[in-house]
């Protein structure tokens, strides 16, 4: 019986998500000007649901101080209070409001993950494309250094670096970005190597184009599809890495709210059959799924595949 009910709930969630996606798409199509709306009209429901979720996260992150009922690290009551009308999601192990922490967590965790991914992509892509365009010693030097970095397990490597440089937000960003940039470098370089042999690159070189223009105008637009797909995936990995590090106590430091850390702090509740610790984990999972819905759609569009 209970399995049946959970299947039912799951079905309701899926149908609800699709309905939300449909509503959101209809709304966007109505609001946007003709040209852009055309693309959106053809978007699958999964993608529009994904965009909706991402938008909600972004809004929550940006307006966190406005939305949140209490201060980020304000102790408002007893420890582990149950859900009620004042503390909608109860309180945590120190008596801070769970909902408030969740809202600020969106700002911290998502914000930092986005900055890290963007940085990793900028560095990895530029270096990867440069290696492919220039070739020779530069390529060898960069690629082999990246190989060395990639040979060390990434979690151990980040732990090591964080221990050395301390656990500030800046060092967290730089360390994870460095580790992730190596993966992006490999992808960007191999994609670009397929592109630099094309005749239009030869034509651009013979025209006397500089390297920066070669990279940005001639190669990058043609390498976007796999890079965008990788961005979605990488973003989720970074997210998990931050949460994992926070769980180990080396990530975002208390009292800053962070979803990974919140799971750890409230893990005891699980033993008592309370679902509260799963909320931050669920928030991570939902965003991961949403990002991948959108990325899949973009990838499908740029690959020109038919269903």
């Amino acid at each position: 019986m209970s399995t049946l009910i959970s299947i039912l709930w799951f079905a309701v969630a899926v149908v609800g998500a699709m309905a939300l996606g449909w509503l959101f798409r209809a709304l966007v199509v109505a609001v946007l000007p003709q040209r852009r709306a055309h693309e959106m009209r053809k978007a699958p429901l999964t993608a529009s649901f994904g965009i909706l979720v991402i938008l909600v996260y972004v809004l929550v992150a940006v307006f966190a101080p406005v939305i949140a009922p209490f201060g980020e690290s304000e102790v408002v009551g007893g420890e582990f209070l149950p859900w009620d009308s004042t503390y909608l999601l109860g309180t945590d192990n120190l008596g801070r409001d769970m909902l408030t922490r969740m809202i600020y967590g969106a700002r911290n965790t998502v914000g930092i993950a986005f900055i890290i991914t963007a940085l990793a992509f900028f560095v990895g892509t530029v270096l990867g494309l440069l290696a492919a365009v220039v070739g020779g010693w530069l390529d060898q030097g960069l690629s082999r250094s990246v190989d060395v970095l990639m040979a060390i397990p990434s979690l151990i490597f980040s732990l090591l670096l964080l221990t050395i440089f301390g656990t500030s937000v800046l060092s967290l960003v730089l360390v994870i970005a460095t580790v992730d940039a190596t993966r992006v470098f490999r992808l960007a370089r191999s994609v670009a190597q397929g592109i630099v042999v094309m005749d239009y690159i030869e034509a651009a070189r013979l025209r006397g184009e500089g390297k920066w223009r070669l990279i940005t105008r001639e190669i990058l637009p043609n390498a976007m599809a796999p890079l965008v797909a990788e961005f979605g995936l990488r973003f989720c990995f970074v997210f998990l890495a931050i949460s994992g590090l926070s769980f180990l106590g080396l990530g975002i430091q208390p009292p800053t709210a962070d979803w990974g850390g919140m799971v750890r702090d409230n893990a005891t509740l699980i033993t008592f059959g309370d679902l509260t610790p799963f909320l931050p984990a669920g928030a991570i999972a939902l965003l991961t799924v949403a990002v991948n819905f959108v990325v899949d759609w973009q990838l499908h569009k740029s690959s020109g595949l038919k269903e």
Partner: protein
Amino acid sequence: MADQNNAQDRLLTIRNLWIEGQSEDKWSPIIKGVDLDLNRGEVLGLIGESGAGKSTLGLAAMGFTRDGCRISDGTVEFDGIDLRNAQAGERRALLGKRIAYVAQSAAASFNPAHKLIDQYSEAPVVHGVMSKQQAETDATSLYEQMQLPDPGQIGFRYPHQVSGGQLQRAMTAMAMACRPDLIIFDEPTTALDVTTQIEVLAAIRNIVKEFNTAAIYITHDLAVVAQMADRIKVLLKGEEVEEADTRTMLSSPQEDYTKSLWAVRSYARAEQEETDKGTPVVSVRNVTAGYGDAIVLDDVSFDFYQGRTVAVVGESGSGKSTAARVITGLLPPKKGEVLFDGKVMPADYRSRDRDQLRQVQMIYQMADTALNPKLRLRELIGRPAQMYLGLKGKALEERVRSLLDLIELEPDQYIDRLPSELSGGQKQRIGIARALAAEPKFIICDEVTSALDQLVAEGILRLLDNLQSEFNLGYMFITHDLATVRAIADDVVVMQQGRVVEQGRKAAMFQPPHHPYTELLLSSVPEMDPDWLSELLKSRAAAG
């Protein structure tokens, strides 16, 4: 031609066939109600431009459609079996055994990881026609009939170890393995040099006769189809234009479209008189070049003049494209030099200044890969003008528009398109516009028409010709097609294995006496006469 009324002889009957292809969630017709009959032992030639539906029709004769296509109406009946409604298993039992297919690019169709003979024996073993042992013995004898060198051993090589022409013959032998009733040849010689093409054509023709196999021969080359087919069917945009037996079709085509196809080959521009040529705009002096230790160009010299077209002819591997790479500076020569307007140019393009880069432009064979697919025409054509001439804003837009006018594309309609929104011929025109935008004195045209249909190619040749007289351009025209040479060249350079074997004015080149290699090239160009191949083979055999 066999007796059409004799039902016993009928092998393949296609009636009112409609095939639709899917694009943008819509189904649009590719083949529009075509009928086709084929008797045992008969060869039917299918000709038409690309997009005419030749290959689609060829595949439909096997009851097969590509992904995203479907047969929407009509019947395909092979020897009494309804192929359109046949079960997958039923069709599988026929394919490879009674119906075989030879693709355009043998190099892309062989599995590079297996030896030829293993791929040969796969079909007969799967269909239970022969044991592996028998298949291998059989392969040797078929390889011999296809006049492959060392037939006992060649099967034990991998596809990359034999040449393109040999691979195409091995593929035909493979299609013959089960002695099918019907073979579909989809442009089997299009990717080959003229001299190699002859051997493949002869081998295919012999073996088809020998086993009395029916065949559908798909090609866009009229002269080739004239040698191969008993009957010819002309297709245009999915519809049949006309059908007749080969001799009738060649001597008296009925429809205007067919006549226009026939007329293309007669295009030739006016002979230019020999004027005082002055200093050559580009001259190649005693150049030796190659990759690594391999020498591809061996002590080569030739000159290009403004307002004149020099055609550089030769088979693949003769070094014509390498010569172009030396001139552009992509491949610095080991010895020798390249002069522009009488002055030596730096060997490497990186050390040339902007003006030197501007003066030498290149048009590529494959417009698909030569245009950045993510840039709009405005930027594709505008960029050289912006870089070299410093045009901006309004002036740049004006320039792009006038260039589009020059290449006969409506500016308002095309300026913001992407290359993917153009046809093959239009893309090649954009390649030309991009070269012109730099206002060069000299343009290298590397096989610019070889990927295009004849009608479209003729348009490109005319355009290049007009532009030359308007801007007094010098052309280096690399090609392997002697018909193109006849159409556009003033002077001809014949290359073989990295050396210039003969050079001179066009009129002189096409009149005897020839260098033996030139003679071979000239005589290998298929002619429209259906007896041409037989007679050529006879005369070559007589000459020993």
